[in-house]
């Protein structure tokens, strides 16, 4: 009996480990930024002109930062979810347009102003077609702000509290279930304090 039982228990243990390992997403890396102040930045917005946005502008309210780009395929899946969510006006979503002009793009080497103009045009067209869930979208052309936020794949979503501290980060396309079960309760809790 013991002869069968011990290998069986070991085997089941191994299977459980492997099964859990299979189901885990290796792209999901815990962010060290949770609980830390959102890194500061000042960037041009999608709207024309020289107006700039900084996270300080959102001080005093709970908000979401959503990293996106028109070239990002998973964003297309996520976008309708965000648009529907934004219509409920529960929390302002700021877009971070991440490296809109890609290195393989002929315009990549163009001067900054030209790149900004092109990126704004492309983003605007895309948002017109797919809907705009953002209160504003900031243009991170060289991806530096993305690096400061630990972005390694688009889309990514951050929840930032009234004091400007990052409370939650999600890598990948946000689903209605995630919004309802995780993000909304968190926002409600953060709004109370």
């Amino acid at each position: 009996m013991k002869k069968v039982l011990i290998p069986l228990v070991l085997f089941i243990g191994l299977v459980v480990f492997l099964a859990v390992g299979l189901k885990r997403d290796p792209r999901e890396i815990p962010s060290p930024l949770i609980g830390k102040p959102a890194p500061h930045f000042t960037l041009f917005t999608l709207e024309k002109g020289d107006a700039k946005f900084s996270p300080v502008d959102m001080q005093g309210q709970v908000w979401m930062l959503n990293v996106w780009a028109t070239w990002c395929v998973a964003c297309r899946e996520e976008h309708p979810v965000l648009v529907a969510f934004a219509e409920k006006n529960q929390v302002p979503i700021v877009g971070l347009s991440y490296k809109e002009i890609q290195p393989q793009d002929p315009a990549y080497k163009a001067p900054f102003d030209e790149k900004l103009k092109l990126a704004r045009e492309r983003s605007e067209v895309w948002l017109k077609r797919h809907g705009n869930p953002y209160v504003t979208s900031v243009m991170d052309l060289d991806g530096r702000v993305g690096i400061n936020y630990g972005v390694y794949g688009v889309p990514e979503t951050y929840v930032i509290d009234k004091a400007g501290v990052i409370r939650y980060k999600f890598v990948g396309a946000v689903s209605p279930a995630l919004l309802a079960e995780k993000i909304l309760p968190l926002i409600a809790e953060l709004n109370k304090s």
Partner: protein
Amino acid sequence: MKRVWMNGALNGVYALSVSMAIWCAPQTALAQATAASSGLAAGREAPLMAEDPKLEARLVDISQELRCLVCQNESLASSHAELADDLRREVRELIRSGKSDQEIKDFLVARYGDFVLYRPEVKPLTWVLWFGPFLLLVIAAVGLGMYLRQRRALAAPAVLSDEARERAKQLLKG
């Protein structure tokens, strides 16, 4: 039921490899194409090897110790992913501004976590990682020792009784 689960798992693995391929492969191809048309401004940041060999050597040294977040089994030194390019650019600038290797690693850890280090620091959170294998080895050694002792007890040298010895003698004589 079981088959469905297996399919799900396999699909997951497949989707993962495809998405990895999307992130990693075109970049690799592009890098090779750029390398082939050496010297031409082919729309990518030119490799700065010639400009400052010392800086590049340090960049390679540091980035070999760092993991690329996109193609996770590649180091930052060897990855062709776009993010790796950007991160190498950051590291280059940090080297230029006179930061030490440790400061540069701290910069990346602050943003991407211990995961970027191929050799994470030894601290309570990484104890399992560092000492777990040795603990398993010790457990296995103890288990083996116990098992062997048990076997030896089972196979205790059988002492022949006088009677049996006598019989054996008889048999051998024929």
